[in-house]
């Protein structure tokens, strides 16, 4: 049975999703549209609702089994932006699909250990989402 993981990275006011599918010979990248889901104004409830629908539809359309998000610091110099935490909260509750978090250190060490690289067809802004998806996928295999 195929399994699909969606890696997520937050950049500014956008959620960047990248989908991987488990095939017989390992994990493969699946091209998916849209390549970003935006939340321009998180004070506008109607816009947050629309964002939630966009995320839910993305997860439905791509038959996602698990979501994995790169963890961001909540405070300090490298803290994530407010929009990213709003978007992350929506992502956690919008469906019953499990949402996991992976630390940046775990992602970096997985890249180092397994030496995977994003497919050439990916935009640069999708690389971090690819890395987190692949790091989680490879870790959950063992």
């Amino acid at each position, binding site marked *: 049975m195929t399994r699909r993981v969606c890696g997520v990275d937050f950049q500014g006011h956008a959620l960047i999703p990248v989908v991987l599918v488990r095939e017989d010979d390992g994990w493969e990248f699946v091209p998916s549209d849209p390549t970003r889901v935006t939340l321009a104004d998180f004070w506008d409830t*109607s816009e947050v609702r629309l*964002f939630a*629908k966009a995320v839910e539809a993305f997860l439905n359309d791509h038959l996602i089994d698990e979501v994995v998000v790169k963890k961001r610091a909540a405070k300090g110099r490298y803290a994530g932006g407010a929009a990213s935490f709003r978007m992350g909260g929506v992502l956690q509750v919008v469906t019953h699909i499990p949402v996991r978090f992976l630390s940046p250190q775990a992602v970096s060490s997985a890249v180092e250990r397994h030496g995977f690289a994003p497919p050439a067809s990916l935009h640069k802004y999708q690389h971090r989402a690819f890395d987190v998806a692949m790091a989680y996928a490879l870790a959950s295999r063992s």
Partner: protein
Amino acid sequence: MIDLASLDVEDGLRDALRSLEGEIEFTGFSDKGANGYVVFGTRTLLDRRVAIKFYPWADDRAHKEPKRLAEITSDHILEVATARVIDDDWAMIETPYCPRGDFERLVERTTLSLHTAILHTAEVLTGMSALHGASLVHRDLKPANVFLDDDGRARIGDFGSVRAIPSDQDDVSGSGHSALYRPPESFELGRYGRAGDLYQCGIFLYEVAGGHLPHDGVALLDREGRKCWGLAAGDFERSRCVDEAIARRAARAKLLDMGALPPTVPDRLKRVIRKATRPDPAGRYSSASEFISALQDARSLCLDWIWDGECAEAKLPGRRVRVVPDGSMFVAQCDMGSGWRRVNELRGSQPASVVREAEARYGT
């Protein structure tokens, strides 16, 4: 209460209704749908209002749809409470009844604001993505089959035309119902896939945004259609003339009149409608989520206008803006809590241009 004996339905259906009479008090009946009947009632033990769709099915195919529908959990699909095969010809699906009605009636009675129309379309698309994820196509998505629930959310209902897509195929046979909403490939090839549902969502968006589709088929006749109509011998042939005229319009992307949309609808949203309803399925949005993403982009560029046929008004934090007729011109007015004041520099002969100028000044 309705008198089952007086209903103009087949005996098999009447017997099925009688078998439910102990549990359900029937209160209404509709034969509005082209693909079956809907009966309304109250489950007496639970005091819960329900709608039961009776639809034709062929016993030569696997009847997978009710089970798959019942497995879907979505805020935007009416839940299947129970389903039953009645005989070799008819089956039924019971769903909750939505007292706030369907979107066909809603847009007849009221005008939705632009952002509300976009959000409800996104809700329908989200429900559609859940159907597609379960390898189902609705095949009869239109405002009359989308309901407003008690929480104000759009929910897809009427599952009489739903079909399961076999795992080795991308589409199923096209439905012959609701010609106005049928995608061109359904007329031309008799096939219907997920892109067909997205096409119908595009027409839904057009209608909830204030566009009008003439439900009187004669208004849709082209030159060829009028000729056909003139030679037609009876109602059946005339109906065929209308369906063929609709098919020609859909194939040429001439079914929807973008010029008839309210002046508050921005070009960006019109482009979304056009793309969703392109004759070639490959030219439409590839998925519900891509469609919603385009709606998000369009929404971010427009205010939440409501158009009453003459004036446009939008609420913003701390102020209201409206565009009203002023002699032969249109002018913008702004109310910041002390009454409406003219904004003299925002004037024009067309409401759409003043609306866009007001957006540039006050919003987006």
